[in-house]
């Protein structure tokens, strides 16, 4: 192999590498640098090098509470998306020819509407005089405080994230040989056993990648917690937003952002290692 052909692959991937570097690595590096700079209430960002922002985050239980809340809201959203999205994808894959395309469009349609618009839509539905509360009153449950609670955030997040669960699961269902289910039935398995022992293990990779996407996006969601959680129910992304734009404490905002990134990465990588590792051997 001569020198030119050895360098060709690198040269060819240079444009995408440049784009990746410019759009992802550079802002990340700048954020990381920013998080290490000093901050003064009177002056603003002062430069210099300090871990003060990190120490501030680590030393205040207020932030622990926010991180914990963000964690369980994202985890609950993921869980509900799995429970709703996986059966939804299965039903979708079993539909006849015209209905399948129609319902796939129905599932994907929300992606065409801005998250902000959808969040406002939910705040209308879940508000004190919204349709949901009117329905509750009608069936005799009485009005519930939904808006500006974690419940509202989870409901809206599930709505937004569902397509990200349905699509990977649907893709792995597409790879399923329908005859495999018939084979299990012919060996006297009940429909429930076929689902549990044949279908579910085979779509697990899809469920895993779907839940990684949903968890990652939910943990860093801004618009939905911001609009449906209100001013008091803070999540990590809304706190970062506040630090940057209201408190103008950029180093602290950057430090929280870096911490969120690190925690998100740690959760996703360990989840991947623990669960997907178990399936990699089987599914190839």
């Amino acid at each position, binding site marked *: 192999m001569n020198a030119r052909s050895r360098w060709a692959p690198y040269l060819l991937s240079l444009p995408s590498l440049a784009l990746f570097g410019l759009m992802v690595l550079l802002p990340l590096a700048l954020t990381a640098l920013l998080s290490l700079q000093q901050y003064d209430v009177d002056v603003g960002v002062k430069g210099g090098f300090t871990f003060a922002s990190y120490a501030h985050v680590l030393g205040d239980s207020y932030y622990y509470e926010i991180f914990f809340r963000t964690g369980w809201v994202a985890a609950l959203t993921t869980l509900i998306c799995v429970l709703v999205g996986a059966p939804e994808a299965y039903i979708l894959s079993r539909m006849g020819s015209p209905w399948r395309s129609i319902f796939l469009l129905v599932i994907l349609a929300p992606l065409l509407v801005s998250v902000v618009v959808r969040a406002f839509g939910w705040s209308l539905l879940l508000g004190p005089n919204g349709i949901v509360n009117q329905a509750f009153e009608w069936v005799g449950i009485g009005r519930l405080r939904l808006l500006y609670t974690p419940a509202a955030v989870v409901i809206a997040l599930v709505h937004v994230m569902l397509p990200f669960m349905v699509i990977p699961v649907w893709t792995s269902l597409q790879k399923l040989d329908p005859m495999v289910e018939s*084979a299990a039935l*012919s*060996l006297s398995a009940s*429909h429930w056993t076929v689902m549990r022992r044949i279908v579910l*293990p085979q779509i697990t990779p899809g469920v895993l990648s779907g839940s990684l996407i949903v968890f990652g996006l939910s943990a860093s969601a801004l618009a939905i917690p911001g609009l449906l959680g209100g001013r008091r129910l803070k999540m990590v992304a809304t706190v970062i937003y506040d630090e940057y734009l209201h408190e103008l404490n950029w180093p602290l905002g950057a430090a929280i952002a870096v911490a969120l990134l690190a925690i998100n990465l740690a959760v996703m990588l360990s989840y991947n290692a623990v669960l997907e590792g178990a399936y990699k051997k*089987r599914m190839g």
Partner: protein
Amino acid sequence: MSFLILEGVSKYYGGFGALIDMSLTVERGEFISLLGPSGCGKTTTLQAIAGLIDVTRGRMQLDGRDITHLPVNQRGLGIVFQSYALFPHMTVAQNVSFGLEMRKVPKHQRDEQIAQMLKLVHLDALASRYPRELSGGQRQRVAIARALVIAPPVLLLDEPLSNLDAKLREEMQFELRRIQRKVGTTTIMVTHDQAEALSISDRVVVMEAGRATQVDAPYRLYEHPKTEFISGFVGKTNLLPGRLSRSAAACDVVLAQGQRVAVDGAAFADGAAVTVCLRPEKLFFTGAAQGALRGRIEERFFLGSQWLYRVATPLGELEVSSANDGSVPLEEHADVHLAWALDVARLVAPGLAAAAVST
């Protein structure tokens, strides 16, 4: 009473009859092949027996029990699918074990049966492999083992060899027959390959446009095809249309150009339109004796064990095959004389599907 009985089983999709009035009786331990071109209803028949589709009409009985409307997971039949349909997330042993687990066979007994079955299909060394780590032939044997381990009353094979290459296919044909003989399971196999059907079945069901047109032992099927279609589909054949002419002394077929061929035409009336079937291997080259047919070799093909000649004769172009016995073959464009024994010419009614006759 027969082991498996199909009575007038039909399957319609809207107005289209995929399977029309299929009646068949299968004895215990028999190996039956359903043979036909694609779309002839052979797979539909298999799926109806398996319970994978609901039949529109008709009844099915297995060992004296009506199974017509029994769901697939209560029939207990062994099925080998065309795609094998192995469980990709389970090892070979787990695949084979699945049916036994569903039958609540205790663990130690299960392990024993799995080991025994894997030995039968020569896969004992690969028990802990996953299906994707196996070759096509090995996968096929896993599928057979998985279907047989539950000791099904009937084994159903859907084109089991079609995904294998030619050499392996031939090996697996005999392997399949060996396994079937050993376990003695009544077997029904769907195939579109006539050589496969002839070589391993006890009886062959030829199907055409949703109907069974002939059910016979392979040798009889080959030697006495009932229709033009069958004579063309099962093996090669030369078809000569003509009209029967019966006199006190002899029975002849008058062909299109007025030539007469002596035949045994007991089943046909005088003057009936008939088709004479002559198998290429029943024709032989001879000297310029009387009664021999003059011809000229147009093309010659070498098939390894035999030579195939296309010979232009006054009766039309005939295919002649002769064994490659090591002697020098005839040259192309040579003038030859053809003859055949009187009793090898078969008569069939001219097929309605004459246009479909190919191969």
